[in-house]
């Protein structure tokens, strides 16, 4: 039996953060993870995170993972991989399978950060090879470099469904449709919009009727559902696909806390503000204590780690309180906005600013032209180059504000506020705001009435990159081809972190509609 002052189960964002915070305070800390690589979901998350600087906004998930691992190493955290926690017993004893042996460990404190697993839904054909979880698709693409399929249908329009659909496009798959039984897109509008502008259709109030094929997926039929979730006869549509991805939610992996005797609150352990469960010395942090974003999981981990350190006498009360106060404020701001836990299940029609929300964005995945005038940051018809910020929902995010050195973009202290264009400042067209926006919702437009042309700069994260002089077709927000376009500039830079800023020349009339480019 080996003893540690803190044992963390799970080396994902929550677990690593807890371990770092505890080890920093001086605790002898070990992290066990059943996987061969640490980081949990972080290394699959190739998109830029939302939030503000303290939440590591505009940094890609895998880079956040690298930073956490380095920090853990510096603090002296021992991270043990291929180590499966198989059981938990009286007195915080854990049995851990490592290779061919079971080893016993005792933790003065334990932080359970086991994360979550993907939910499945059933329909005829759901067990055919080719029906996979969206997370599995992400693992294949981003960890193992394997394309999950060629033609994919995604079920579920929460952030996971939207983000993974975009990644499938990036990997070179064709996404034939995004389907959700709900009437509204569940994830961020900006995530939906970046998928929609590539031409992927959304089918809301639709579900999978059946997946076809004998020994693998050959096609899928979807149908519209009525108010009682029954498929309306005659509404069926069939797609030729080889892969069906399911992004229908996550369930906490709570076996360990349950087995330890922690009091449960439904499917999650009941925890206090510090992540402490009903069993003394056992804490829970991250998705296992309630499904949220990785950004929140990291903060919950920090708080639980600090709480364990305080309990063990490694932190003075005042130091502990100041750590917790800072993290709680940070966590609070992430939970604000129209997607925050307080708003769950509520029907929202206007933004915090009182602007009517775009129904088109919620049902089709893109802003309708009639919505544009309501949002002051979506400008048009100005002289010189100017930013157009198609950010129309209150989500906790503000990197654009700092990205503009000229101070053109104002969000203020409340990070869920919609960005406002500062009329006093002048845009130089540097493109840093375009690259900084994790939602890829910022464009630069320059209208040249004398030449009857307009230059539209947009974020681009596909390979191969277009080159200056390439000719093709400009697509509108829905992905429909609208006019000829010529690439006039492609900007990349270290600070842009692989969000390239591509500029295309289009006829003047398309300045406010051309938003994406496709080669001929």
């Amino acid at each position, binding site marked *: 039996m080996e003893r540690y002052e803190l044992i963390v189960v799970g080396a994902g964002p929550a677990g690593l953060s807890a371990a770092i915070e505890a080890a920093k305070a001086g605790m002898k800390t070990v992290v066990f993870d059943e996987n061969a690589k640490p980081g949990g979901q972080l290394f699959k998350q190739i998109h830029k995170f939302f939030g503000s600087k303290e939440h590591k906004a505009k940094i890609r998930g895998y880079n956040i993972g690298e930073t956490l691992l380095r920090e853990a190493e510096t603090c002296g955290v021992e991270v043990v991989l291929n180590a499966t926690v198989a059981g938990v017993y009286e007195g915080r004893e854990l049995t851990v*399978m490592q290779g061919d042996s079971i080893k016993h460990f005792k933790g003065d404190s334990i932080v359970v950060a086991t994360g979550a697993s993907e939910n499945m839904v059933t329909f005829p054909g759901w067990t055919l090879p080719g029906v996979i979880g969206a997370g599995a698709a992400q693992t294949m693409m981003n960890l193992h470099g394997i394309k999950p399929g060629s033609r994919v249908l995604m079920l579920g329009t929460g952030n996971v469904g939207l983000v993974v659909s975009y990644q499938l496009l990036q990997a070179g798959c064709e996404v034939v449709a995004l389907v959700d039984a709900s009437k509204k897109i569940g994830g961020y509008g900006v995530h939906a919009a970046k998928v929609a502008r590539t031409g992927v259709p959304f089918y809301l109030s639709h579900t999978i009727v059946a997946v076809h094929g004998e020994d693998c997926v050959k096609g899928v039929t979807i149908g519209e559902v009525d108010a009682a979730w029954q498929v309306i006869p005659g509404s069926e549509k069939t797609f030729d696909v080889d892969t069906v991805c399911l992004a229908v939610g996550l369930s906490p992996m709570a*076996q*360990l806390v349950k087995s330890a005797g922690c009091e449960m609150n439904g499917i999650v352990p009941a925890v206090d503000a510090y992540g402490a469960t009903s069993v003394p010395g056992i804490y829970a942090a991250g998705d296992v204590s309630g499904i949220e974003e990785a950004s929140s999981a990291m903060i919950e981990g920090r708080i639980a780690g600090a709480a364990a350190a305080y309990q063990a006498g490694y932190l003075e009360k005042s130091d502990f309180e100041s750590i917790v106060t800072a993290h709680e404020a940070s966590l609070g701001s992430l939970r604000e906005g129209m997607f925050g836990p307080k708003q769950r299940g509520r029907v929202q029609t206007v933004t915090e600013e009182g602007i009517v929300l775009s129904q088109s964005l919620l049902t089709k995945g893109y802003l309708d032209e009639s919505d544009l005038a309501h949002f002051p940051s979506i400008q048009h018809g100005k002289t010189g180059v100017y930013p157009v910020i198609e950010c129309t929902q209150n989500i906790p995010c503000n990197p654009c504000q700092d990205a503009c050195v000229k101070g053109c973009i104002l969000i203020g202290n409340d990070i869920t506020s919609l960005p406002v264009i500062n009329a006093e400042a002048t845009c130089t067209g540097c493109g840093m705001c375009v690259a900084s926006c994790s939602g890829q919702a910022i464009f630069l437009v320059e209208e040249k009435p004398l030449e009857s042309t307009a230059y539209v700069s947009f974020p681009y994260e596909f390979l191969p990159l277009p080159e200056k002089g390439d000719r093709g077709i400009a697509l509108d927000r829905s992905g429909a081809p609208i006019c000829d376009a010529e690439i006039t500039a492609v900007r990349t830079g270290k600070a842009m972190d692989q969000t390239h800023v591509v500029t295309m020349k289009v006829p003047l009339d398309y300045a406010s509609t051309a938003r994406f480019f496709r080669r001929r």
Partner: protein
Amino acid sequence: MNGRIDRSIDLGPYVAAPDDGMIICRCEEVTKGEIRRAVHDGMFTITEIRRYLRTGMGLCQGQTCARLVKQIVAKELDVSPDVLEDAVARAPFRPVPMRVLANEAEGRTR
């Protein structure tokens, strides 16, 4: 929570459904029809279903099917899935080969 299920309720006759042949527990190859029929046989709790059919007892330990089984049982009983208590979580949480457990008993690798 189990106490809330009325053991004397009349479920009515078992009526075959077109999707009864659909596999729900992939590890143990248990179909929807088998689960529905088990409820009519008197298996009203997840634990009973589990012992009767081995749902959730295979390689993934119910990670995939636990929610699905619960939904089917709840629908058959005409109760909310929240009323049904989850199966007990016990070690090992992940499959552990017998030889690994045996290694410990013999003290070979400690």
